[in-house]
Every structure is written in structure tokens, then in C-alpha cells.
């Protein structure tokens, strides 16, 4: 995966002086794979596999993202440091997500079950008849 800055032969238009040329066929195949995966992920939405729906959806999204990064963004052939930058940034996002989710899951997610105070105010004023208006707030945790 090491990068190569091609030697300086300018006569051949198929070789850029710098960077890496990805053949059109690779790009088209990548696109087809992405479209198929999109259809697949939409199809899976209508099948009930419980907890695994979200896992499959995210899995397919990660696969698609990997394809885009590796082939459209040339990361497969790019400098190792550029690859590290990309992966490191994603891991820091994962870190932020993981630690905050662990914390909020540890807390009681909601201290009240009804509408929040301001929402209740708006509902009382604007839509006193709506079913949701009866979900008045601050009942004890469920």
C-alpha cells in the first residue's frame, strides 16, 4: 500500500507525474457494489431480525464507506500516514461516542416520563386536544 510517486515520463498520458491512477473499471465496479449494497440495506429494513437490524444497517454502511475510502479516495494506494489520519480520526469519534453513551446509559435515561415543561406549555396553549398533551410531565421514573 505504499505510495509511489511515478517517475517523470510525461509523454505517456496514462501516468500522472504524481499520485496514483485508478483505472475506470475499478471505479465502475466500486459504484456497482455501492448501489447493490444500497438496495440490500433498504431491503433489510423490511425484515425483522430484532436487534440485528441496526447491526446489519451499520455493517453495510461501514462496508460502503470502506469502499469509498479505499477506491474513490485512493486510500488503498495512498501514503500510510494519510491512512493513519483517516483511521485515527474515526477512532476518536468512536471514543467520544463510546464514553458518552456508557455514561448516559448508566444514568436513568429520563427522570420524568411525560412532556418536558416547555413542551407541555406549548401543547397546552396550542393543541390542548392532542393526545400527546395528556402526557403531562414529571411523573416518577418508570
Amino acid at each position, binding site marked *: 500500500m505504499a505510495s509511489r510517486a511515478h517517475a517523470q515520463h510525461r509523454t505517456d498520458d496514462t501516468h500522472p507525474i504524481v499520485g496514483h491512477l485508478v483505472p475506470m473499471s475499478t471505479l465502475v465496479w466500486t459504484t456497482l457494489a455501492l448501489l447493490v449494497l444500497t438496495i440490500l440495506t*433498504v431491503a*433489510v429494513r423490511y425484515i425483522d431480525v430484532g436487534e440485528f437490524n441496526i447491526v446489519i444497517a451499520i455493517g453495510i454502511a461501514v462496508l460502503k464507506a470502506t469502499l469509498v475510502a479505499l*477506491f*474513490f479516495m485512493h486510500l488503498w494506494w495512498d501514503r500510510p500516514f*494519510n491512512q493513519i489520519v483517516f483511521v485515527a480520526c474515526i477512532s476518536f469519534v468512536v471514543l467520544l*461516542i463510546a464514553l458518552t453513551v456508557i455514561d448516559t446509559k448508566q444514568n436513568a435515561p429520563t427522570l420524568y416520563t411525560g412532556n418536558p415543561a416547555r413542551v407541555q406549555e*406549548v401543547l397546552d396553549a396550542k393543541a390542548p386536544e392532542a393526545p*400527546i398533551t395528556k402526557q403531562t410531565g414529571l411523573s416518577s421514573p418508570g
Partner: protein
Amino acid sequence: MTAIDSKPEETPGLDESHGSDTPFQAHHFDTPIQQYESVKLGMWLFLGTEILFFGALFALYTILRANDPELFSYASQYLNTILGGINTAVLILSSLSMAAAVHFAQRGRKTLMLISLWLTLFGAAGFLGIKYFEYEHKIHVNLNWGPSFYYPVDAAEAAAVGEDGQVSTVQDENARAAADESALLSAERSTSLPDVPEPRLAPMPPTDAVSMAQSAIGPGGLSAVKPEEKIKAERAAAGEVTYSDKPHLEDQDLPVNTHRFFAIYYAMTGLHGIHVVVGMVMIGWLILRGTKGHFDNRYYAPVDLGGLYWHVVDLVWIFLFPLFYLIH
């Protein structure tokens, strides 16, 4: 925003050419390769900040959803899977054309590169067009962020916003006139309105775009005046068939805090939309420079970097689509 996002593409110093290998080599770089690798690393670092920029919102999304999964599976029905799917395909195809533009730029094929860039630009415009329809409909039926999510879609209510002294525009006057008509139809509600204590909406800023849009719509929403058939026809025309027909406020099953789903929905898709707009400006700039013949197989870094940016826009959408539109 524009300037901020598009800056790294322009970094190779244009005005400092010293007759080096290519006309666009800045004097403080020794070789074109050094310059190319520098701008590329700079772009990747910038994309890293973009990832963390969106990453914070993804974190927010995960927290909201982890703590309230039912809310998300309920609210997702208001999003149009078909439109979202079409938009996904549009973005993937525009990513292909962008990658192709880079490919042709690397080979010095000017015309093919320009065609690819134009295709990418059309794809971006198409994406935004579809997005506009989606937003427009949601605002129409008050699937908003903030308190207006809980306003009934009703002309009388639209006028009430004006009565609170929040919106006083020409549209508001029109809406008020329309409200008088509909007040005859729903006498009960209109009599209950004056009982509302006035500080209810006081914290809403006077230039609240949402309520302005709403009063501008007037009786055109899902008001009691409007025949059901007409609504259905309108929705079918917009291709919206996969989701709930019922105004959300009348839904017995509407969970509390559903407005938060729409807050994160608008925040994420909105920020993504801003990036699409920035991307379009950038592609336009590439087309301009490409037409002038600035790029060849020796110097094509701006196309390359623009491509990277555009692919990140695609990457973000690849996650947004299943996370919002495909919740089982």
C-alpha cells in the same frame, strides 16, 4: 463557511510561480511531488476535522437513540425512504463522476474531465432538489424542530402565532384573514384561544423562520378546511407513499420528545446539505479553472482534493441514510 471549507484546495500558491516544473508550483516547495504530497496531507487532515465535526453529531445521535430507541423507530416513519434511497444513489453516482474527473485529469483529458465535473455538479444539484422537497413537505406539516413541532397544522393556529406578537409581516396579515374563515369552521378551538396566557411564546425570537414559513403557508397545510383527497393527491405526487398519513399531533401513539428526533435530523442533514452547497461552489470553481486549461497530468491537485472532499460528503450520507430513513 464557504471560505473555510474550500480553503485547503487553494493552498498551492498561485501567485508565486517561479518558472519551476509546473506553472503552479509555489516557491517554498522544492519539487512538484513535495507540493502534491503536502497539499494531499493537508487535505486529509482537513477531512479529519470534518469527520470529527460530523462525528460529534453522530455521537449525539447515538446517545439520543440509545436512550430512546422506540422514539426513533416511531419517528422514522415520517421520513421518505424512497426519496432518501434515490438521494443515496444520486450521491454515489456523483461520487463516481467525481472519481472519473480525477482519473481524466490525471491523464490530461480535459474534455472528459470537464464533462465528469459537470455531471457531478448536476448530481449535487439533484440531491439538493430532492432534499428541498423533503424539507418543504415536513415544514408544511409542522414536522419541525423546536416548539412549532407541537403546533397543530391549522390556519387558526398559524394566525395565533401572529396574535402573540411574534410575527407581524404581510404574510401574517394574510394568514390572519384566512384564519377568520376557518374560525367559523372550528368555533370551539377559536374560542379557547384567547384564554392562552401570553408569555407562552415569549422566548421565541421575533424572526423565527419556522413560524414565518408556517404563517406564509396559511390554510394550505393539513387544516380541517382541506379535503382529505387533495392532501393524498399532493402527497402521492411528491412520491411519498411509504409513511404515515396521519398528522402527528393527532396520533395516539406519538411518543414524548419526538421533536428531538427532528432536531437531530435537521441538524445532521442540514449540516450535510451545507457541505453539499460548499461542494457545488468548489466544483464550479474547478470547472472554471479546468475550462481555462489550468490542469494537466502534471498539475491536477485541486481536482484531486476537491474529489476527496466530495467523497467525504458522500461518506457522511452513506451513514445518514440508514440511521434516519431505515430504522426498522
